[in-house]
């Protein structure tokens, strides 16, 4: 597939607020079921192993007219739950047989209860993950939680989730994470060849497509990108942070890059990059998933950082590893995790002499000029400092 075709395919998936591709997947064989999940992390391997399709529900973006959703939320609550409710009450999520709500924040947590109240015929589970990172304590708790989820998903799907099936699913998700790592490494090395708006669309496609299809699409994209030569701009290299739950409008990412910044690392769709190494595909799969969560998962604002010294280290490593020159904190308005974390992360960056700038957005932000100006000024200042 040519690059344009791949990007167009991803753009069409992104634009489709009716989840047509998911409906097509579901209707392609009898008895198929679909499970939605909110950001930031759920173990999608379990859904896959039950023969069901995991679908990331990331709000309604800037194209959805939220009419009903605002009646469910006060003005001081972020945008993603209201557009998600809008998607549901307008029937767009009817294709889902269930929803998983991870322990991202109080708003997503309470949304699980709203779903229980509003959609009583649907399967709803809150996915608690440990904030205690001792294998024998938090790890043991999480393994038992995974077992409960495994039992529930098996019952819903009507398919037993055997260890073999689960290990096979883990293997497919390992391949997907490897492909994404390759994509991110490629972008980091040559960001002009893989512009972030395209990488973002590719990652969003992974929220809708079957995992193996998505893995192939990433490989195709990398091959297609390598086959062409794109102009190199004199941009600075930045990491963007804060986009792990409510999604930025695509225009925001374009604006950052147009303003003179190459995004070389980010925290989009962390569900697909949560585990930093391959999960073993033999032995007890639940224990392996649990150990992976405890021992090698990303640091994000939704997680507790056990020591003061470790706070911000993950972001600093991201800056160093991607050879970034600064960080753009782009946080959704009223996002408790991102906004409470930001001062601590900024302090950690300052201690390392890493520049940053910060602004807020909502998924339906329309006015990009201020963001472009701020990102542009940030890029200029980095260039000036670099010259000095």
């Amino acid at each position: 597939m040519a690059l344009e075709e791949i990007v167009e395919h991803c753009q069409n998936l992104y634009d489709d607020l009716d989840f047509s591709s998911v409906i097509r997947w579901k209707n392609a064989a009898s008895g198929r079921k679909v499970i939605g999940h909110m950001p930031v992390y759920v173990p999608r391997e379990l859904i896959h192993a039950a023969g069901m399709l995991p679908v990331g529900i990331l709000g309604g973006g800037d194209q959805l007219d939220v009419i009903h959703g605002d009646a469910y939320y006060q003005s001081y609550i972020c945008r993603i739950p209201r557009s998600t409710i809008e998607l549901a009450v307008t029937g767009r999520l009817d294709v889902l047989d269930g929803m998983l709500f991870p322990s991202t924040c109080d708003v997503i947590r309470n949304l699980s209860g709203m779903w229980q109240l509003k959609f009583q015929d649907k399967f709803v589970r809150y996915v608690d993950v440990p904030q205690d990172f001792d294998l024998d304590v938090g790890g043991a708790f999480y393994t038992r939680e995974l077992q409960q989820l495994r039992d529930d998903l098996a019952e819903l799907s009507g398919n037993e989730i055997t260890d073999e099936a689960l290990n096979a699913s883990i293997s497919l998700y390992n391949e997907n994470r490897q492909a994404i790592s390759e994509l991110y490494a490629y972008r980091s090395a040559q960001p002009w060849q893989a512009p972030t708006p395209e990488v973002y669309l590719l990652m969003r496609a992974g929220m809708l497509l079957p995992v193996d299809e998505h893995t192939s699409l990433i490989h195709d994209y990398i091959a297609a990108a390598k086959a062409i030569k794109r102009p190199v701009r004199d941009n600075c290299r930045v990491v963007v942070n804060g986009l792990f739950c409510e999604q930025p409008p695509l225009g925001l990412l374009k604006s950052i890059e147009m303003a003179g910044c190459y995004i070389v690392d980010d925290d989009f769709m962390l569900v697909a990059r949560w585990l930093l190494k391959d999960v073993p595909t033999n032995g007890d799969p639940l224990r392996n998933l649990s150990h992976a969560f405890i021992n090698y998962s990303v640091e994000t604002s939704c997680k507790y950082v056990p020591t003061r010294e470790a706070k911000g280290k993950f972001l600093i490593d991201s800056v160093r590893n991607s050879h970034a020159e600064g960080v753009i904190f782009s946080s959704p308005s009223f996002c408790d995790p991102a906004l409470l974390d930001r001062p601590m992360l900024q302090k950690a960056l300052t201690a390392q002499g890493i520049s940053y700038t910060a602004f807020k957005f909502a998924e339906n932000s329309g006015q990009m000029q201020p963001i472009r100006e701020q990102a542009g000024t940030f890029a200029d200042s980095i260039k000036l400092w670099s010259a000095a």
Partner: protein
Amino acid sequence: MNTAATDTADVQKEESMILQKAMISANYDALSTAHEEGKKISSTFVPGNLNELLMCFDFVRNLPEINALQAGMRKKSGGYIMEAERSGHSEDVCTYVKTDLGMMSKGQVGPNGKPLPTPDLLLLSYTGCFTFMKWFELVRDQYDCETAMLHVPYQADGKITENMRHFVVTQLKEHVIPTLERVSGVKFDIDRLREYLRESAKAEDDLVWVLQSAKNRPSPIDAYFGGVYYCGPIFTAFRGTRETTDYYRSLRVEVEDRLAKGLGPVTPEGTLEEERIRLVVEGPPNWTHFRDFWKMFYDEGVVVVASSYTKVGGVYDFGFRHDPDNPLETLADYCLGCYTNHSLPSRVDMLCNYMDEYQADGFLVNSIKSCNSFSAGQLLMLREIEERTGKPAGFIETDLVDPRYFSSANVKNRLESYFQMIEQKKARGQDRTAA
């Protein structure tokens, strides 16, 4: 005016309020001098607070939420919040956090006018509120002291599972207690814990009796504005002490006396003479204008007969009591059972139960800008409760301690309209009954 006040210049207080004030003052004094006296200080949160456990290690207990609400009541929180915002904290986040951080940067002066020393330990009971986790990361960043984390799983399906309980107990055994021992230098004595828990259970019995006295007509208490005073000792640094048992015993005697005399609640302007409307209220109160806010209710003869906020530091009125025979398991169940750790359907069920049991005329939500744990989903809760009970529901918005978010005229207008609607609905009901 529905109160029997003799002199509005003198604020009327129940004996128990005076006693409680003395307890709180003594605790602030104990905090101020703790290090001089060789004692260690632990900071911890109200929901899921492990007061009995901390006492086993002789920690003096500091509660940043209480410091923040005290700052709100003393009209100092606005300045603290702006100080925190000036240093980079977002205007969007919890104002308790910003009050705490702002207070810290202004010298951490307690309500007794003396500086509060740096805590030796932050006991993070991550119960029912995501912000707690980040709050203590922020505080740890400032103080650079030890933090003990207790992750309390969320009761998403309305029940405590064995895995949840086991997880909390294991964290207590493996991490929390060893950290408390190390920081305090005191060896854990489970029998000492049992003694404290025994005292807790006695106080809890009396607290529940007091809260449930509001089922009477007229209610001898206000279970929201008065209720926050009643819950003060048991929610904070005092649960498990003999002093607290005595406090709740005397409070009960006081309320029994009011009940026997057929008296309404004590308000700052005297006893409420006529109970016109009975409400159930969801959400925390506003602290910066607490007295003005309360006046909007008692001036109209409105009594709050049950509230969710008085369950935020422990839900006792559905049977839970601290159990000295199962000390760690009971601490786990207590933490798991705090109000905001309940799912929305459970919260709706609880509030509907209150509407019914306490014969309420209406349901009011005071939605707090700062507190997503409470606030996210309240509009749906309101509709559900209105639908299930057939009683009118009202909705107002304020904040905990940010005076910029208390619009007195707006709140008063809304409340007056809401109270009129309730009265009209009651009158129509009476007309139909008479016909």
